[in-house]
């Protein structure tokens, strides 16, 4: 009897099970939450807002240790963050009412992280602006960093564009060449004979070692930076696609052969698709090595871009601007990695087709 009471949806009978969607099924199979769990869920969802308000009050009410300029930038940003979370939550709740639980569950899953972010901001502000435990201006408070953004955003955008240009030119060249060499070497023993020693010789050398050499040898700094970035990604992609193609099961080639595939088709229609997981893994690796090479190049020689901006500003003791650039860098790299991840998931959708 008590089991019956725990069934949340009693209107469904066995004959109707055929029309269930995935989330409805999940809903049907989960037991109804106890009062305790329900309260906990509400608290979790409210936590980011509470922590956001704590951060706001901490900033507004506690006396400042150091002088503060344009104090409301931080307040606006905090409020915007809190508002964004509330909208996100509202969308989740509204969709849940309409029978779509996905967004709501995501909000619920992420809420503790958002709360932690607000708490982190509060603690950071307390340690910098309010008590000076982290010495000003070397570790500037969030308000300063935000103001630096506002003051210098034209320059930051300019630097961002330069950085992205360098990154993508280098990365594209490196990845394309890497694909060509990797696939050729994976398939042809002769090509591997010539390329293998080069890879074995160049492989263990870290990218940063090349910076001083190329800065001297290359005609332009830009060209030198492109070369360094391309070299790193070329290496990663070559090795990954070579192993990927080398690992293709012989059975697939035999099957393709008996089905009438030509030599060319065996490369492009069997070997490459089969090696795709490995190739994409190489591309992701190439991106992270490109990012490292890019920053090194910009900090050591290239006279533009975010890396250069950071060194330049720290030279002027403008640590707030330096931090602003650092945030932009983090943001860009996060987005780029996320994009690569998306592409990978789409191309390799056959891999997680589900097990039976």
């Amino acid at each position: 009897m008590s089991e019956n009471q725990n069934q949340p949806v009693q209107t469904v009978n066995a004959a109707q099970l055929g029309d269930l969607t995935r989330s409805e099924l999940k809903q049907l199979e989960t037991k109804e939450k106890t009062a305790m769990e329900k309260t906990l869920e509400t608290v979790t969802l409210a936590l980011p807002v509470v922590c956001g308000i704590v951060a706001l009050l901490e900033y507004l009410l506690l006396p400042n240790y150091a002088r503060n300029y344009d104090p409301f930038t931080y307040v606006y940003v905090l409020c915007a963050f809190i508002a964004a979370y509330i909208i996100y939550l509202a969308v989740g709740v509204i969709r849940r009412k309409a029978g779509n639980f996905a967004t709501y569950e995501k909000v619920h899953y992420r809420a503790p992280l958002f709360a932690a972010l607000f708490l982190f901001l509060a603690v950071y502000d307390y340690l910098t602006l309010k008590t000076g435990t982290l010495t000003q201006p070397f570790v500037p408070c969030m308000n300063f960093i935000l103001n630096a953004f506002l003051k210098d955003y034209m320059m930051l955008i300019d630097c961002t564009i330069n950085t992205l240009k360098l990154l993508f030119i280098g990365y594209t060249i490196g990845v394309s060449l890497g694909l060509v060499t990797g696939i050729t070497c994976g398939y042809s023993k002769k090509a591997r004979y010539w390329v293998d020693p080069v890879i074995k010789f160049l492989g263990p050398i870290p990218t940063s070692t090349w910076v001083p050499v190329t800065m001297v040898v290359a005609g332009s700094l830009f060209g030198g930076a492109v070369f360094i970035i391309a070299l790193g990604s070329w290496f990663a992609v070559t090795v990954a696609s070579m192993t990927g193609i080398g690992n293709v099961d012989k059975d697939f080639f035999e099957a393709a052969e008996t089905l009438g595939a030509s030599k060319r088709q065996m490369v492009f229609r069997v070997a490459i698709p089969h090696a795709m997981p490995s190739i994409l893994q190489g591309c992701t690796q190439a991106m992270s090595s490109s990012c490292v090479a890019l920053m090194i190049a910009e900090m050591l020689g290239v006279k533009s871009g975010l890396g250069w901006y950071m060194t330049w500003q720290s030279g002027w003791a403008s640590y707030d601007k330096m931090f602003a650039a650092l945030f932009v860098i983090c943001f860009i790299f996060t987005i780029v990695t996320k994009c690569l991840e998306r592409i990978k998931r789409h191309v390799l959708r056959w891999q997680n087709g589900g097990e039976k």
Partner: protein
Amino acid sequence: MDKKVVLKLENVSKSFAKVESDEVTHALQDVNVTMESGEFVSLVGPSGCGKSTILRLVAGLITPTLGKVSVDGVEVEKPSPNRGVVFQKPTLFPWLTVEKNIAFSLDMQGKLKGNEDKVEHMIKMIGLENFKDDYPAQLSGGMAQRVSLVRTLINEPEILLLDEPLGALDAFTRMHMQDEILNIWSEKKQLALMVTHDVDEAIYMGTRVLVMDANPGRIIADIKIDESFPRDRSSASFVEYRNDILNKLHFAGKKNK
């Protein structure tokens, strides 16, 4: 079948060198056999008797050390969609959907345009209409092997080579698919050559059973199964065939010890 083909193996020997040593194994020694369209030939024997080697020679995946494999007098040199192979592993391309796997062969030969209905017909034949957009990872073993079978059949091969196609399936799926394969074969009566290690299966499906033995690999008996389809696994004549073949294999095994 509109065209009759004759498959001939004349004095065929095949030896393999071992990878690690200079030793050479003789997988086949002096095999002579002729088969033609309308036959369903089962190759049965213990492992190492070279039955798969015969199949791979006919497919053109390997070439004989000595002798000649020919179809209608033309020597077999390389694989062709005309001699379709169904392997023990389904070897479906995991990055292609069921539909695209079946269409693979036509696509490779540039014949897909205008033949989409053929693909559809094949999907219907194995009853996987609901799975045509799924990837092989989502299929059960039996389903995957069915797809693999029609992926080969779509070329309407004159010779159908089956390399233990049902070896990895459970007993029920296996019996079910034996009938399915026989049904498909009886439509066109192409020459079918099936390797199996299951004597019952060899008798149940074959119009002719070639019994093989190892060391060196050779054919020790060529038995015609004179019974109409569908066959009764428990009939007296079936049991007699089985005993006959088992006897041959058993004695052969003892003699070698």
